[in-house]
C-alpha cells in the first residue's frame, strides 16, 4: 500500500474576486498532510477549513499556488480533475442530506459504479465499505430514509470509502451526533485508517476529539495556518492556541493549571487516561515525600 502525501504550496483562495464581495478565504498556505497519518484540522467557523477541504480534491481551484497529490500537481491536466476526485474522497458536512438512491446498497454503489466498477467487484467494494462503517448486511436493502441520523451519516461515509480513495477528507464527520454516535463514527474512521493505512484529514471543532484521534494537527486562524505538527508539538503551544481564541482540551487546562500552581506535572497530556496516570504518579510521589518528612 503506498502512502500518499498531499501538499499545498503557496495556496491562496479568493471567493468572488474583483467584485465588492471579494473575500480571501485562504492566504498563502504551505502545509503537507503526511501519507498514512490522520491529520486533524481545527479552527473557528470562517477560518478557511471547508475551503481547504474543497481545494484538496479539486472541487475548488486555487486562485494561486499548487496542490500536489504525491508528486502530481492536481491541476496539471484540468480535464482530468475527475480522476483526482476519485483518489481524494471528500465527505461533506451533514452528508446524510445527500443520500438519494432507493436503497442503501445503491447509494453506496453510486460512486464506484461511476468509476466503472461492476459485478462481483462492485458487490465486494460495497460490502467492504458497509462493513467498515458498521452497517449490517440487512440494512443494505432498506431505504436510506428509514435509517437513524447516525446510520444515514455512516451510509454517506461508506459511499466515499467504496471508491477506495487514497486520501479521505472528512468535514466535521461527528457534527450534531450524540456522544454514542460521535464515538462510534470516530472509532470507525480510526480503524479504517489503521487497516488501510490511508491518509486521512479530519476537520473538527472539537479539540477533545482531535487530540484523541489525530496523529498531527493543523490549526487555522483567519485564513492562515497558525501552527501545525504532531499533537504534542501543537499543544505545547497551548498559550498560543488559547490566546487566539481556540479552546485546548479541558484536561490539558487542568494540567496546566496544576503546573501553574507549582506542581511538577509533565507536559504533553491531552487525554483523560494520560491525565489519570499522571495524577497517580504525582499522588505517589507526594505520598513518599510525606513519609520521608514524617
Amino acid at each position, binding site marked *: 500500500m503506498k502512502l500518499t502525501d498531499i501538499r499545498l504550496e503557496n495556496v491562496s483562495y479568493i471567493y468572488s474576486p474583483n467584485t465588492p464581495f471579494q473575500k480571501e478565504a485562504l492566504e498563502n498556505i504551505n502545509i503537507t498532510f503526511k501519507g498514512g497519518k490522520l491529520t486533524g484540522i481545527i479552527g473557528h*467557523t470562517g477560518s478557511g477549513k471547508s475551503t481547504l477541504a474543497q481545494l484538496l480534491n479539486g472541487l475548488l481551484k486555487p486562485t494561486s499556488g499548487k496542490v500536489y497529490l504525491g508528486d502530481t500537481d492536481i491541476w496539471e491536466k484540468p480535464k482530468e480533475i475527475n480522476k483526482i476526485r476519485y483518489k481524494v474522497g471528500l465527505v461533506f458536512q451533514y452528508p446524510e442530506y445527500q443520500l438519494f438512491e432507493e436503497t442503501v446498497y445503491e447509494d453506496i454503489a453510486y460512486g464506484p459504479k461511476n468509476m466503472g466498477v461492476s459485478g462481483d467487484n462492485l458487490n465486494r467494494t460495497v460490502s467492504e465499505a458497509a462493513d467498515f462503517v458498521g452497517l449490517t448486511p440487512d440494512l443494505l436493502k432498506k431505504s436510506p430514509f428509514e435509517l437513524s441520523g447516525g446510520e444515514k451519516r455512516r451510509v454517506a461515509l461508506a459511499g466515499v470509502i467504496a471508491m477506495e480513495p487514497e486520501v479521505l477528507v472528512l468535514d466535521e464527520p461527528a457534527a450534531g451526533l*450524540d456522544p454514542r454516535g460521535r464515538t462510534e463514527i470516530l472509532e470507525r474512521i480510526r480503524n479504517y485508517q489503521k487497516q488501510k493505512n490511508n491518509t486521512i484529514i479530519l476537520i473538527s471543532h472539537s479539540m477533545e476529539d482531535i487530540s484523541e484521534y489525530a496523529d498531527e494537527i493543523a490549526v487555522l486562524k483567519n485564513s492562515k495556518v497558525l501552527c501545525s505538527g504532531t499533537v504534542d508539538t501543537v499543544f505545547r503551544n497551548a498559550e498560543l492556541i488559547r490566546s487566539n481564541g481556540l479552546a485546548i482540551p479541558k484536561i490539558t487546562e*487542568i494540567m496546566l493549571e496544576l503546573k501553574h500552581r507549582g506542581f511538577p506535572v509533565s507536559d504533553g497530556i491531552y487525554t483523560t487516561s494520560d491525565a489519570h496516570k499522571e495524577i497517580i504518579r504525582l499522588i505517589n510521589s507526594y505520598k513518599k515525600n510525606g513519609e520521608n518528612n514524617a
Partner: protein
Amino acid sequence: MSNIVFENVSYTYTEQPNLSNIPFAVKNINLTIEKGSSVVILGHNGSGKSTLAKLINGILLPTSGKVTVNGMDTSNQENILEIRRTVGMVFQNPDNQIVATVVEEDVAFGPENLGVPPHEIRSRVEYALNAVGMSEFRLHAPHQLSGGQKQRIAIAGVIAMKPQYIILDESTAMLDPYGRREILDTAHSLNKNENITTVLITHYMEEAVYADRVIVMNDGSVVMDGSPAYVFSNVDKLKAIGLDVPQPTELLYLLSKDGHKLPAGIMTVKDAADALEKYLLKGE
C-alpha cells in the same frame, strides 16, 4: 398556577395505541417545571427528550396523561393559542426558522401574527434584539449571519412574543463552539435578567453545568433529576446510558475509583484543580 406540569404522561408515535407492546417515546412522565428556573434536559438520540419538549406547547398531545401550562391543559384546543404565546420554542436548524429578508422584520413576524399594534411591535423588536445582543444587525439580511447569530435572531423572534417560558430544542446542535457559547449566554441572561424560564434540550454535557436543574432522559423515562453536581456525581449511571461526562468530572471519577477520596460531581477546570491541589498537599 405558574408552572409546567406533566401528570402520568405517555406518548407514542404509532397510530394504533390500543395494541400491546407498542413503543412509547415517553412513558409515565411526572414532572413539574417551576417558573423562573433554568432546566437542562439531557439524553442521547431517541431518549424522548424532544418528544417531551413538543408535548409542552401542544405540538404533540399526550397519548395518555395530562400536560398543563400555568394550569391550562394542552389537550384542550381552546388553550393552544394562549399556551403557544406562553411557551416559545426554538428549534435545531437556524436556517429553517427564518422567514423574512431583514432581521428586524423576521423578529416582528411573531408579534404581527398575534395582532400586536404597530408601535408596540417596534418596541418589542427593539427589546428582543437587545436581549439577544443583536441590535446592531437589525437591518442585515439573515442569510449573511453566522449560525449562532441566526439562532439568536430565532430566539429574538420568540422573545418578541413575550413568552414566560422558552424551550430550546437542540438549538445548539448545529453550531460551532463559539455559536454554542453565544446561545448558552443568551439563554442564561434571559433567565437571570428577564426572568424567563428556560428549558434547554441537548446532548452536550457541558451545557448542563450552569443550569439550576438537570433532568436526564433514557428510553422514554426520567432516570435522574437534580442539581448538575448531583447528576454528574453519578458517572457510572450516565455512562451506562451512553452519555459522556465533562473531562474534569471524568478525571476525578477515575481517581475516586482507584480509592482516592476526591469529591464527586466536580465539573469545571478550576474546581478540579482546587480539589487535586488540596488532595496532593495532604499527601495521603
